[in-house]
């Protein structure tokens, strides 16, 4: 590992490491902006969501459910369930963040996304570095993503106001979810969890309060865990 790493160098390293991914984040952010406006949110709200929540999949799910006038408690629950994986990331990063000041820890938490986590954990596990250098690397990845996310959401939101209804751009939301789901499937139990949940979500659509979504998630998770246990045992 680079023993001459300074915070400045580490920050730039993070930025450089993340750069190839930028092109993949832009359409995602743009759709978050377009879909928000399409569902009836103001441009300010579309951008506000990207600033305040900073989590694409949950933003799109929220937008989709708002468009359907789902119960507010359901929307909150769905968004938080989707973001529950951040607890795992948080646990994984906790020991590296321990020496940092509270404000630095809060900043790391605010910027915690799949990408910030993936790149950082790779770097942190590669070799020892001062906590301040690690924090700088994390900022390099996280703040770059933040900027890209806000810019693309803003562009999408501004564009969305001028896009005609007939283009069915709301279909872009499930398409983004497909783009997130499919490459992330690592083994059969992931697939079983997904297929089970998908099936239940359609079959149970008659349930009130969008319970179909929650029950689909619970049953899907149970199916995945069940298969994983059986395969591991």
């Amino acid at each position, binding site marked *: 590992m680079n023993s001459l790493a300074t915070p400045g160098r580490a920050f730039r390293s993070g930025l450089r490491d993340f750069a190839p991914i930028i092109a*993949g984040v832009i359409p*995602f952010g743009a*759709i978050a902006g377009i879909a928000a406006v399409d569902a*009836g*949110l*103001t441009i300010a709200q579309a951008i506000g969501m990207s600033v*305040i929540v*900073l*989590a694409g*999949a949950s933003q799109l799910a*929220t937008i*989709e459910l*708002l468009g359907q*006038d789902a119960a*507010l408690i359901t929307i909150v629950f769905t*968004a*938080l*369930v*989707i*973001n529950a994986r*951040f*607890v*795992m990331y*948080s*646990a*994984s990063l*906790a*020991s590296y*963040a*321990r020496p940092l000041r509270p404000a630095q*820890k*809060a900043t*790391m*938490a*605010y910027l915690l996304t799949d990408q910030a986590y993936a790149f950082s954990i790779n770097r942190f596990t590669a070799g020892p570095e001062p906590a301040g250098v690690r924090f700088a690397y994390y900022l390099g990845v996280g703040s770059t993503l933040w900027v890209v996310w806000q810019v693309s959401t803003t562009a999408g939101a501004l564009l969305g106001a001028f896009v005609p209804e007939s283009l069915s751009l709301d*279909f*872009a939301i*499930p*398409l*983004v*979810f*497909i*783009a997130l*789901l*499919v*490459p992330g499937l690592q083994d059969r139990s992931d*697939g079983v*969890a*997904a*297929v089970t*949940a998908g099936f239940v*979500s*359609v079959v149970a*659509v008659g349930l009130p309060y969008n319970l*179909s*979504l929650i029950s689909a998630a619970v049953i*899907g*998770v149970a199916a*995945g*865990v069940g298969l994983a246990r059986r395969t591991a045992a």
Partner: protein
Amino acid sequence: MTSYSPATIWILILVIGVGTFALRMSMIALLGRVEQTPPAVERILRFIRPAVLAALIAPAVVLLNGEASLLDPFNPRPLAALVATLVAWKTHNVLLTIGSGMGVLWILQVVGA
């Protein structure tokens, strides 16, 4: 279009934002107490993502106005989604996935109309 008021939507955004921040901060704040998430919890968290994503995808693709229309020739979405899924599987590329899905949808809409 949502029928919720702007104020309601702002409060919703804030609640989700604060809740998400709490999730992100959770273990970083609890440092030292829990070194790693327990394996059982980690297993459950791991499967939440594919399950929830699939539960969001399926109704949007298969249902039209709340009714199953998988084989309905007037619903081009399942086929478009299938193409997108195959593209995602082969290329792992976000842009191609979205592009192919929307492309197939538009073609089918034009042809069907």
